[in-house]
């Protein structure tokens, strides 16, 4: 191992990550290598400077800000939950109403056709307007409908 490898090992050892075997190897090397000894003391110094940076107390408003943020967030969530429910209910309502109107219109159209068909195939009607073909019957139905509207 060269000094570069030993310096990586020094960094690991300072962090408590070196094994017992690695530590023994390092100690042997440090006895004879002044440069690596200086590196080790520099690492200790840098670590010491880092550790000595004092912890600051967070502002007292921090925790109250977080908790009030949670409360307001929950209100928003509850509101959005109700809003979603209302939208869903409205959508279901519209589907039901829409389906009802559709059915009503469809039923009416069917009834009208049946009624007109009934008129067409009415014996009295046929007596007055004897059809020559199915086409005449259909044409008569349309004309009859138009006449009724008038």
């Amino acid at each position, binding site marked *: 191992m060269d000094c*570069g490898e030993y*310096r*990586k090992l020094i*960094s*690991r050892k300072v*962090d*408590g*990550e070196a094994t017992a075997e690695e530590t023994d190897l390092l100690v042997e090397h440090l006895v004879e290598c002044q*440069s690596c000894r*200086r*590196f080790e*003391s*520099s*690492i200790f*110094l*840098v*670590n010491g*400077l*880092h*550790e*000595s*940076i004092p*912890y*600051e*107390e*967070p*502002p007292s*408003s*921090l*925790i109250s*800000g*977080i*908790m009030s*943020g*949670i*409360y307001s*967030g929950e209100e928003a969530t509850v509101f959005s939950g109700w809003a979603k429910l209302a939208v869903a209910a409205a959508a279901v309502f519209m589907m039901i109403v829409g389906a009802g109107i559709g059915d009503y219109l469809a039923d009416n159209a069917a009834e009208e056709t049946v009624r007109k068909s009934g008129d067409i195939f009415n014996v009295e009607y046929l007596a007055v307007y004897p059809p020559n073909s199915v086409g005449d019957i259909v044409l008569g139905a349309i004309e009859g409908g138009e006449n009724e509207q008038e």
Partner: protein
Amino acid sequence: MIGLEDADLMRRTASGDRESFRLLVERYQKPIYNFFLRSTGSKEDSEDLTQDLFLNLFNSARRYREIASFKTYIFRIASNMAISFWRKRRGKEIFSLDGDEAEGSGFDRFSSGDEPVADLDYAELDRAFKEALSKLPPEMAVAMELRVRNEFSYKEIAEILGKSVSAVESLIFRARKLLLSELRGFRGERDDP
């Protein structure tokens, strides 16, 4: 409730217990705030980031799974936020990885005197160190904060940063070399007015 583990408090939080969450905030607001303070250098930004972190934590409490310890989990979120913040705000101020990291730089130049930094005024050195720390690339600075001030193991830091243990080891070693290199620069300025 005070004696409950973090994971228990998180579970209670997930079921809507706000008092449990308050306890978690009380436990972690100081280390998280200081972690951001070291990362941003700004009390206002640290307060905002800490608040954002806890609000997100509360809102995502149901997604919390006990794969890692809660401390690892919360510092993973904080690390991601800090790195993201740094990349947005400080991209141009950090060290270049191309120059100072070259083999033979850093310590060798820093410790060229009889005893490294022994002749420096401590207050000046402290200031220089903080300045050097503030210039570290984001991931290096976060790794150093996690290791030195929050005492995470390399394995835990690897989990937090999503890297291998050897990558974390390398990150921390390179960070130290950069710090020594920067302090060497400080010393040079002082010695050569």
